[in-house]
């Protein structure tokens, strides 16, 4: 599954290896935690809120990885499009949060838990990388 997602991301333009790895791990983390939340809540409100929060932040992260890898490699003509996409992404995140918290009235802690999956992914990825570099130095 991880390899398939990695190949898919490479095919659709995520050419930066570490960014692709981060995004792949975030997709896996969102899928696993959302499935666990849905099963534990038996399809209840907080499970759906967790899933939607994780989906929203994964889409957000997806666009941010694209933005960052394009920002350092783009020519002057591509900057306008990048900034347009950046603000569209922010708008979608804001509207999504409004719909989840205000309109649907889902539990905020579950939404925030789903949105925090990206933090967990980055922290785990950083810790694993640090552990790997330390062991390499010791060796």
């Amino acid at each position, binding site marked *: 599954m991880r390899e398939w997602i990695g190949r898919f991301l490479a095919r659709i333009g995520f050419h930066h290896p570490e960014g692709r790895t981060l995004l792949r791990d975030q997709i896996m983390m969102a899928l696993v935690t959302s499935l666990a939340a849905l099963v534990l809540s038996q399809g209840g409100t907080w499970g759906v809120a967790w899933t939607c929060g994780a989906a929203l932040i994964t889409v957000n992260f997806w666009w941010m990885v694209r933005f960052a890898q394009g920002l350092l490699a783009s020519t002057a003509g591509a900057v306008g499009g990048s900034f347009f996409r950046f603000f569209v992404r922010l708008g979608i995140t804001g509207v999504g*949060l409004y719909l989840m*918290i205000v309109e649907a009235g889902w539990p905020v802690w579950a939404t925030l838990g789903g949105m925090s999956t990206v933090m967990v992914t980055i922290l785990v990825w950083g810790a694993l990388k640090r552990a790997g570099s330390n062991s390499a130095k010791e060796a």
Partner: protein
Amino acid sequence: MRKNLLVVLNTIAMLGLASMAFAADGASSVGPMAAIGSAIGMGLAALGCGIGQGIGVKGACEGMARNPEIGGKLTTTLILGLAFIESLAIYALVVCLILMFVKPLG
């Protein structure tokens, strides 16, 4: 400077008092203090987030210009930095939405 500050503070006070007066009729669904607090909070969050992201991107671009070979590592650091900084703004937005619409303080 002092005059501008006084104008801003007076405007905020007038808006707050007017909304409170209308709230007595049940006309307003969002409390005036919650709206002002949310606006100030979101503004501060956006300010800090903007400064932080700007400094991050500036550093990445400068590093890339000085040493283009290190661009790959810089991109990773940039992604992580942007994600961490932006998550703070998103959390601030959630708090503002809670303050305005969920009304935990009544």
